[in-house]
């Protein structure tokens, strides 16, 4: 009897303890769940970034590892910024980003407008158009090389050039640049389309009905209803594509390798060359840091908008 009472009392006393233990275990579980991910990301991102920040102030070549990094202060940065070639990489990349993002927006938005109202087979068409986006850019670049081939490629043939008279798309500097843009648009206009479709489907019908009652013209309706309602998602698409186009590497490597001459030598490609074929590790790290600062700036805006859309 007394024993049972003791037990009951112990149970009562034990109860808050047990709850505390569970609260503690929540805390422990949270740590257990989070730390592997965070550790991994820190080890693979923060540490390398700090290390390459250090390297960017040194003269160092990874291939000659017996020679330790030699501190040279801001030399790499000043060399890079005074080198006209650096500016030309950034100029090419800038043109490339502007041209491809603009075209992708136009084509993608156009496709979305075409496909916004469902018709028989529209689902299939939408999915088929999305296929290029999922493919590996380097493989895409490679088989477009065949398509662009001046003698037996299908591109000139479909454009109607007589055999052998068509332009050599990848062999001529200006055309090579636009060839890369065309492939990029082919791959990524579907991305813009997908986001625009999401935006368009969210526009309530009553807005259009109201516009019709007010006898608003179709252009006016587009300008005042469609465009503003799609704008937030379009912005997401443009920001994301800007970041990605700025990083373009795989596609160029598959298609032109940066040539002919320097005509498609984007920042990422030249960075790769500086780091892994010229083995100027210190200089490459400095260039990487310049790129990094630019990208982080744009991705900050992007993530902010993404969160806003998530919340709204």
């Amino acid at each position, binding site marked *: 009897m007394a024993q049972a009472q003791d037990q009951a009392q112990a149970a009562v006393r034990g109860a808050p303890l047990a709850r505390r233990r569970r609260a503690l275990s929540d805390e422990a579980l949270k740590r257990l769940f989070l730390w592997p*991910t965070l550790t991994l990301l820190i080890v693979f991102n923060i540490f390398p970034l700090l290390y390459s920040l250090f390297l960017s102030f040194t003269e160092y070549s990874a291939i000659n590892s017996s020679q330790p990094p030699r501190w040279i202060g801001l030399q790499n940065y000043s060399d890079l910024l005074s080198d006209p070639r650096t500016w030309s990489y950034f100029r090419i990349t800038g043109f490339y980003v502007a041209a491809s993002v603009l075209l992708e927006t136009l084509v993608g938005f156009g496709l979305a407008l075409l496909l916004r109202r469902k018709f028989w087979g529209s689902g299939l*068409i939408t*999915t088929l*158009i999305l296929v*290029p986006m999922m493919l590996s850019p380097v493989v895409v670049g490679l088989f477009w090389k065949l398509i662009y081939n001046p003698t037996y490629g299908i591109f000139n043939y479909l454009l109607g050039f007589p055999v052998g008279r068509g332009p050599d798309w990848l062999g001529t500097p200006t055309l090579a640049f636009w060839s890369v843009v065309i492939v990029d648009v082919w791959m990524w206009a579907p991305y813009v389309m997908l986001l625009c479709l999401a935006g368009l489907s969210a526009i309530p019908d009553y807005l259009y009905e109201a516009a019709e009652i007010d006898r608003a013209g179709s252009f006016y309706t587009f300008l005042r209803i469609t465009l503003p309602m799609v704008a937030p998602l379009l912005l997401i698409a443009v920001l994301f594509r800007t970041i990605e186009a700025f990083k373009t590497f795989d596609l160029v490597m598959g298609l032109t390798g940066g040539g002919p001459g320097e005509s498609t030598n984007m920042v*990422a490609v030249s960075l790769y060359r500086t780091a892994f074929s010229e083995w100027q590790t210190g200089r490459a790290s400095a260039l990487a840091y310049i*790129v990094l600062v630019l990208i982080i700036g744009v*991705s900050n805006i992007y993530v902010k908008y993404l969160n806003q859309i*998530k919340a709204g």
Partner: protein
Amino acid sequence: MPKVENVTRARALTGVRVVVATTLCIIFLIPVLWMALTAFKPREAIISVPPRFFFTPSLEGFVGLLTQRSTLTRTQMEKYQQRTDLNWMDRIALQRGLAIIGPSQYVSRLTNSVIIAFFSTALAVTLGVLAAYAFSRFRVRGTADWQFFILSTRMLPPVVVTIPIFLMYRAVGLFDTHLGMILLYTCFNLSLSVWLLKGFMDEIPREYEEAALVDGYSRWQAFTLIVLPQAITGIAATIVFCLIFAWNEYAFALMLTSDTARTAPPSIPTVIGTAGVEWSAIAAGSLLFLIPVVIVTFALRNYLLRGITFGALRQ
């Protein structure tokens, strides 16, 4: 009769839209179709001028891709032709006066791709599920900052991170190893998997778990028995996205592997053909490489939007 006129006009517009959309869709698919066609062309048909659309299909490209061959001398050839133990690959090679001497490098690289994509996805999704649950259900100090950090890791250009990782890997012996690539792709995919899965988990009502906790389940039991089964579609979609990214990845593989652990994307341009460019082999390689992705795109079509916006938008 303005109304009837409107209806006919609307119908005509729909018709125009359907035609234009279908045409554009076909134009969009030409490159992929052309590649698929090229993969089955015999060598002469590929470099024919003007481009040939009809030809006798041949598996020459696939044989060229998957095997290593050596040229036969005339006497060897005659001996070879009398053999009866030749399989279809040998016979295709024989038509060009070649004998198959073994599988090509591409086979081992495709295997590497499969191994690395599989393990990195398993890791990224497992870790992602745990972290996403923690972010979704617990109060984490600096949640927004952590999430920004996690996503920003994906925004960095691979080339930028690779230089120090290359040095790090070389120092610890992870350069050109499967483990090194698996860890790297895990990191690369973690950001996507955490963001996507957090979105999926946020949609599961907390009440279920709370009821389970009241009933005496532990937090771990509530997580495994209640939340995980509910999140299974989301987890499946995340798995597929991670698989695609790991499968397609090129830049890291190019810079951090040389042979043992090299995956398919960086080898498709280089592995094939010693004498000139063998387009049918390249096309065959691309085709083999792209088919899984195309199938998966169809399976995923309802989740694509979610995947590409890191879970911010759902259809």
